[in-house]
């Protein structure tokens, strides 16, 4: 049953990701990606990561993609025109690279999925899905990384401000 729900969620995510890539209208692309990320959040719940699923909905679908929509509305970008700028060699080489990469990825996953190194004391399913335990790990062992990310976010904030402001202002 869980497997069925996961597979359906993954399929929805893949189909809408495909629509995102195919579509010519950037606004529709963003909306398709929102649906794809919601489906992925459902998959994350089934992979025993409810906190990450909440982050996915709030931060990814809620904040980052809405930022994309804001910028699209701000720039008023139209549809991509299928004009003479299309370069056949780019399409051919690009498709070839995608196929090669997909094959590589498939082979890599097939080689590793049977040999997962189990921990000395694997966590139970209840422990894995416990956000309190996640927070304890984050604020003890990974505290330095957490602080580094906060500095990175500050740097990104200042960088975005400097990049996007008008020069005469």
């Amino acid at each position, binding site marked *: 049953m869980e497997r069925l729900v996961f597979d359906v969620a993954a399929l929805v995510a893949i189909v809408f990701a495909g629509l995102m890539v195919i579509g010519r209208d950037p606004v529709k692309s963003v909306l398709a990606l929102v649906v794809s990320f919601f489906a992925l959040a459902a998959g994350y719940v089934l992979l025993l990561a409810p906190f990450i699923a909440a982050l996915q909905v709030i931060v990814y679908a809620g904040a980052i993609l809405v930022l994309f929509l804001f910028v699209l509305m701000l720039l008023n970008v139209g549809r991509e025109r299928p004009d003479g*700028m299309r370069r056949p060699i780019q399409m051919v080489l690009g498709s070839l690279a995608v196929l090669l990469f997909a094959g590589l*990825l498939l082979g890599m996953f097939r080689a590793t999925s049977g040999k*997962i190194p189990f921990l000395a004391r694997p966590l*139970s399913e209840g422990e894995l899905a416990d956000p309190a335990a996640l927070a304890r790990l984050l604020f003890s062992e990974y505290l330095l990384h957490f602080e580094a990310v906060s500095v*990175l976010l500050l740097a990104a904030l200042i960088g975005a401000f400097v990049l996007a402001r008008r020069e005469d202002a």
Partner: protein
Amino acid sequence: MIGSIPLSDVLLASGALFSIGIAGALLRRNAIQIFLSIELMMNAANLALLGYGAAMGSQEGQILVFFVIAIAAAEASVGLAIFVALFRHTETIDVNKINLLKW
């Protein structure tokens, strides 16, 4: 196995999403859509991390995904600011028409 979900299903979904993302990044010309494809690739990597983490019985996969999401937020804000600045100068975000760095 995570519950009753085999790890191979998770990895297959992750690989498919990543390949779709790389196709978008290589074949589209609208900079926003290329950027969305990169976000999709990050999510595919997140899915693989959560799958492996849960299969190993470790929460460290979730910790990694937490950091990836934080860095994606930083990357999105800077990237979109670059597009806004670029659009002011060139009036387009078609990557075939932008060649400021080409000699």
